[in-house]
């Protein structure tokens, strides 16, 4: 019924582009690898470490998140809303910045070791498997907390009221209300975190390494960049894809939660149990807040004073990163919007499947594949930024679609008939109906992909050439040459820019919807 090209055609075309990008790169990787014979014993150690650290990180994050979520659920205090919002921050925080913060707190010259030596105790070492796991818990404990909190908030208020009326003790509530909820929520949260840790690169690059703490992603990078052994890099890429597929199969068994976790309060609040449990909850919340906020605060504390004195290269890198971030959010919107609109039409299911394809690939796998494809045509260094844009857009796409699809479904159900009955079509429909109605999830998606791309240190590390350093890569190089004061300032800048981008997109879309 549209004049011009119908939306299903645009959406189908976008889906084909994404499918071609993902499947094409995977095919290039598979073709070049020609099997797994190139892998040595060190590579299999990396596979083992990848799996082991992902299991431990996911398990620790989920176990620790349960008391935090419970305390947050049953207590009300000043700053509670802000703390819950802050729990969403690590999702947007550039990994390299978080690593800086963790080193500032737990590193050799960090606060924790200062305290320990004052007490005459032996220090902790941040580098190695324990550091990798610590960093993963830092990222995923807040995510797990939000997901589990969502489960708590989903327990119907009537059920809680009934429990209170029947005089349930905490143990009774646990058995009849909380445990059944946890049994539903925990597997999904665990698998989601397991998936994230499986493709961990930057944490392993900075805190791991060596035979004891190398992930497959890191091994791909090293084979590619240092050994210039493309066959091994490709074979490792295949292994990485296989790991992701296994994890996704696992995810198919449980229901995978939405990416971002709970929002703020909904539903009724009943006073939590009194007595020593109050103290326990207070301690749990305080510990979680300190664990989450001190690394971020440490980076800002050391870095903000140095912002004014940053060298010109830092600002040039910031400019490149901003360009990459904005280009990647434009690309994500250009793909996700027509795909979401087409996916909710009859026979649009395949479009959604195509949009979820990037989940099976990782940043380094896509990077390796694109390198193999582009090598005959162009100098990889010259393509560093465009490839970074494309890969980040592809990896953000599943998140964008997960945000857009439910809203697109509602839009179609509520207003498709009205729009059709008035003869609204084409650009007029896009402008007067689709964009205003979908502004919120569009802004969220754009902000998410901008923040992801801003902080990405995956593909760019593979492709980097002089003059193409983005802000995260520039920061990594500063850390490598122990210019820690500059590094802290750059980390602050990177963090501020990432949050600002997300905030600006999200804000703009809320305004549009008003």
């Amino acid at each position: 019924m549209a004049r011009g090209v119908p939306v299903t055609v645009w959406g189908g075309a976008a889906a084909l582009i994404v499918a071609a990008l993902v499947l094409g790169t995977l095919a290039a990787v598979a073709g070049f690898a020609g099997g797994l014979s190139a892998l040595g014993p060190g590579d299999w150690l990396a596979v083992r470490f990848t799996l082991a650290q992902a299991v431990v990180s996911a398990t620790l994050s989920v176990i620790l998140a349960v008391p935090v979520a419970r305390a947050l659920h049953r207590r009300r205090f000043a700053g509670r809303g802000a703390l819950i919002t802050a729990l969403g921050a690590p999702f947007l925080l550039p990994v390299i910045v978080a690593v800086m913060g963790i080193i500032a707190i737990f590193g050799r010259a960090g606060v924790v070791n200062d305290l320990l030596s004052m007490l005459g105790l032996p220090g902790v070492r941040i580098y190695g498997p324990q550091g990798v796991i610590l960093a993963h818990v830092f990222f995923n404990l807040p995510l797990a907390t939000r997901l589990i909190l969502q489960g708590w908030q989903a327990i119907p208020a009537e059920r809680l009221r009934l429990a209170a009326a029947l005089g349930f003790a905490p143990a009774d509530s646990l058995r009849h209300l909380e445990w059944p909820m946890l049994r539903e929520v925990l597997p999904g949260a665990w698998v989601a975190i397991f998936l994230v840790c499986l493709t961990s690169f930057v944490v392993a690059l900075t805190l791991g390494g060596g035979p004891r703490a190398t992930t497959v992603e890191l091994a791909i990078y090293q084979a590619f960049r240092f050994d210039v052994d493309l066959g091994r890099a490709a074979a490792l890429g295949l292994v990485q894809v296989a790991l992701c597929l296994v994890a996704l199969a696992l995810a198919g068994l449980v229901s995978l939660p939405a990416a971002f976790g709970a929002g703020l309060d909904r539903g009724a609040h009943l006073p939590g149990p009194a007595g020593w449990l109050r103290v326990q909850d207070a301690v749990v919340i305080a510990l979680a807040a300190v664990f989450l906020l001190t690394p971020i605060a440490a980076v800002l504390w050391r870095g903000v004073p140095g912002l004014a004195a940053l060298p010109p290269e830092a600002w040039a890198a910031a400019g490149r990163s901003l360009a990459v971030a904005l280009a990647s959010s434009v690309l994500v919107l250009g793909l996700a919007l027509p795909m979401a609109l087409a996916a909710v039409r009859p026979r649009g299911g395949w479009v959604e499947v195509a949009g979820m394809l990037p989940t099976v690939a990782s940043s380094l796998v896509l990077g390796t594949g694109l390198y193999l494809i582009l090598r005959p045509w162009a100098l990889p260094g010259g393509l560093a930024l465009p490839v970074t844009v494309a890969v980040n857009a592809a990896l953000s796409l599943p998140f964008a679609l997960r945000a857009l699809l439910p809203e697109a479904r509602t839009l179609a159900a509520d207003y498709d008939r009205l729009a059709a009955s008035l003869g609204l079509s084409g650009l007029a429909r896009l402008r007067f109906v689709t964009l205003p109605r979908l502004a919120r999830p569009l802004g969220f998606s754009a902000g998410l992909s901008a923040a992801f791309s801003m902080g990405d240190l995956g593909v760019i590390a593979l492709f980097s050439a002089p003059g193409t350093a983005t802000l995260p890569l520039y920061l990594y190089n500063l850390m490598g040459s122990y210019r820690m004061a500059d590094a802290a300032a750059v980390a602050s800048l990177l963090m501020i820019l990432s949050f600002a981008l997300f905030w600006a997109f999200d804000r703009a879309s809320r305004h549009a919807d008003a």
Partner: protein
Amino acid sequence: MLTLEALTIVQDDFRLEADFSLPRGARVAVIGPSGSGKSTLLGAIAGFVPLTSGRVLWEGADLAPLPPGQRPLSILFQDQNLFPHLTVDQNLGLGISPSLRLTAADRARIAEALDRMGLEGLGARKPAQLSGGQQSRVALARALLRARPLLLLDEPFAALGPALKAEMLEVLSEIAGEQGTTVLMVSHDPADALAFAPLSVLVADGRAHPPQPTAPLLANPPPALAAYLG
């Protein structure tokens, strides 16, 4: 004249047939038990429900090639008749130009329609800032501006109280009378049907029956309708 020519609609185990004509300017109530297919019948005429066989004709021309917005009709649904994010003026403007390219004359017409409906000064508001009755008036005002010869009402006033509903039907009669509009109105209320529509189409047992005078039909209903009316 609206002609439903050997129309059949089959959806899974649901089936609806219709074969009749309505004279131009007729006011027709569509009555029948829940789930009998009253909305489906209107949806088929408007172009939302695909026909299994048969044709819908307006003045002898087959409507099949026309998308809903280009058919010679306006339709008001039970809900979602206005876009909540657009102002009243914009919602009305969509009735004149779907791309909202409005001339000064168009704007004057919109203002006139607002006055006519007792909505003067409310053009800049969003639908949520209006009462239910005012929202219905905006939707009617848009139909007035579109001035299509056929108007389909799928219970747009069902959520209004009795007094407001009666008022809407009055406004509707007035507009339809002026423009010579053919009106097809789904109704659950025999009183509405009696007051507004001299003719009624009974939808029951998989069939939309040819129009018949409303008063005798309601006075002496066939069994399916009698069970529904209680």
